[in-house]
């Protein structure tokens, strides 16, 4: 499989914490798995361009996004990398429709059908005129996903999208994520510390601990079913 996103010698030092990563992502959904404080969000910020690494190179589909040695750093708005942070960050002053089209401001006829398709598949048609404040947790989640998809990203980064939700709601959102994965086919890096989510959604996993990659491979090799419900890392 050819690498879709390559991270070569990417490192950053933040106080006493140091992140140092070498990895190649193929298309499909890859989990970035690890406990809190492992550096998952920091790595996402580096990939989106919200944080500059001290060293290293990032290449996406032959396009150099970062080359610290050459002082190259493509700004976030030119990277075509969608980012759904943990707190979703919907724009509170805009209604759902305006939130959704923010990343695709030039509304063309074909965009309209794409728009319809996305809002129907994520079942948010009835929410278009509401403000984010009026939405439930699960609705906000779907709107944030739809907004990221409508900007037509080449890569999607999801930062612990289910961690703030309770178990029953999580159960209901996972099928939506599977639908996004199977229908929109956007290469995705899915950040989580929950093994069950990795198994439900991803083919591959990169395991990060204390700023270092400690395992990288197919989910079926890395995770095993526990006797009590759920999965754990081997």
């Amino acid at each position, binding site marked *: 499989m050819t690498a879709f996103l390559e991270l070569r010698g990417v490192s950053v030092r933040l106080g006493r914490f140091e992140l140092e990563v070498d990895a190649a992502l193929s298309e499909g959904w890859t989990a970035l798995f690890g406990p809190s404080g492992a550096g998952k969000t920091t790595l996402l910020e580096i990939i*989106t*361009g*919200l944080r500059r690494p001290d060293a290293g190179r990032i290449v996406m589909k032959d396009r150099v996004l970062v080359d610290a040695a050459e002082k190259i750093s493509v*700004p*976030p*708005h*030119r*990277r*075509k*990398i*969608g*980012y*759904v*942070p943990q*707190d979703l*960050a*919907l*724009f*509170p*002053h805009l209604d759902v429709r305006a939130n959704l089209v*923010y*990343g695709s401001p030039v509304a063309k006829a074909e965009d309209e059908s794409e728009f319809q398709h996305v809002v129907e598949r994520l079942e948010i048609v009835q929410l278009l005129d509401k403000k984010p404040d009026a939405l439930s947790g699960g609705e906000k989640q779907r709107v944030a996903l739809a*907004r*990221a998809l409508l*900007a037509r*990203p080449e890569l999607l980064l999801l930062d612990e999208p289910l961690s703030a939700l309770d178990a029953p709601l999580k159960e209901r959102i996972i099928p939506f994520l599977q639908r996004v994965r199977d229908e929109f086919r956007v290469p995705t890096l899915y950040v989580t510390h929950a093994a069950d989510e990795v198994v439900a959604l991803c083919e591959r996993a990169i395991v990060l601990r204390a700023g270092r990659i400690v395992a990288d491979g197919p989910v079926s090799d890395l995770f095993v079913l526990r006797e009590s419900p759920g999965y754990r890392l081997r």
Partner: protein
Amino acid sequence: MSSLDWPAIGLSFGAATLAVLINLVPGVGLAWLLARRAWPGKSLVETIVTLPLVMPPVATGLLLLELLGRRGWLGSMLHSLNIEVVFTWKAVVAAMAVMSFPFVVRNARVALEAVGTRVEQVAATLGASPWRVAWTVTLPLARRGIAAGAVMAFARALGEFGATILVAGNIPGSTTTISTSIYSDILLGHDGDAYGLIVVSIGLAFVAILASELLVRERRL
């Protein structure tokens, strides 16, 4: 029979409005730099901006007089362009602008900090340039706080006395404001006229503070 000094009321109103308008762009820009960026000399600039809040206004007025007078650094440049500032209505605007600047900056800074960086970051990942992020996300979300600051700055400008009297004087019909008119009315024993203007001042201040409170409260909803 007392009479209201309408030219003074008009000048106060017009000059305070102009002062706030002049302050808005640099004030919000500086607030953004203070809220979002780390740079050398930031604490120093922050302190200088706050100085007019705590310094005796007369001292600020004297410094302005030094700056804007014909032999002053800025005044000599303006003089060569045939622009006289000191003891004209422009000096009233300058004094009001300097004295009310901290209100614009401090309120705007708090408002910008409240917006947080996360929504801005997400807007950028959706393809928005820094300017588009500022226009469509940051400023709309901070606008109530910025407006509240502008209203407070306007109220402060209306009440300006110490700096104004030094740099603009108290020339009836030319540089006399509500505050300086009250002062000369008292000196001349025209207490009735002074009280008329005091009532006007209280009314204006009341409306401004109420408007500012309402703006901030609605933002919290």
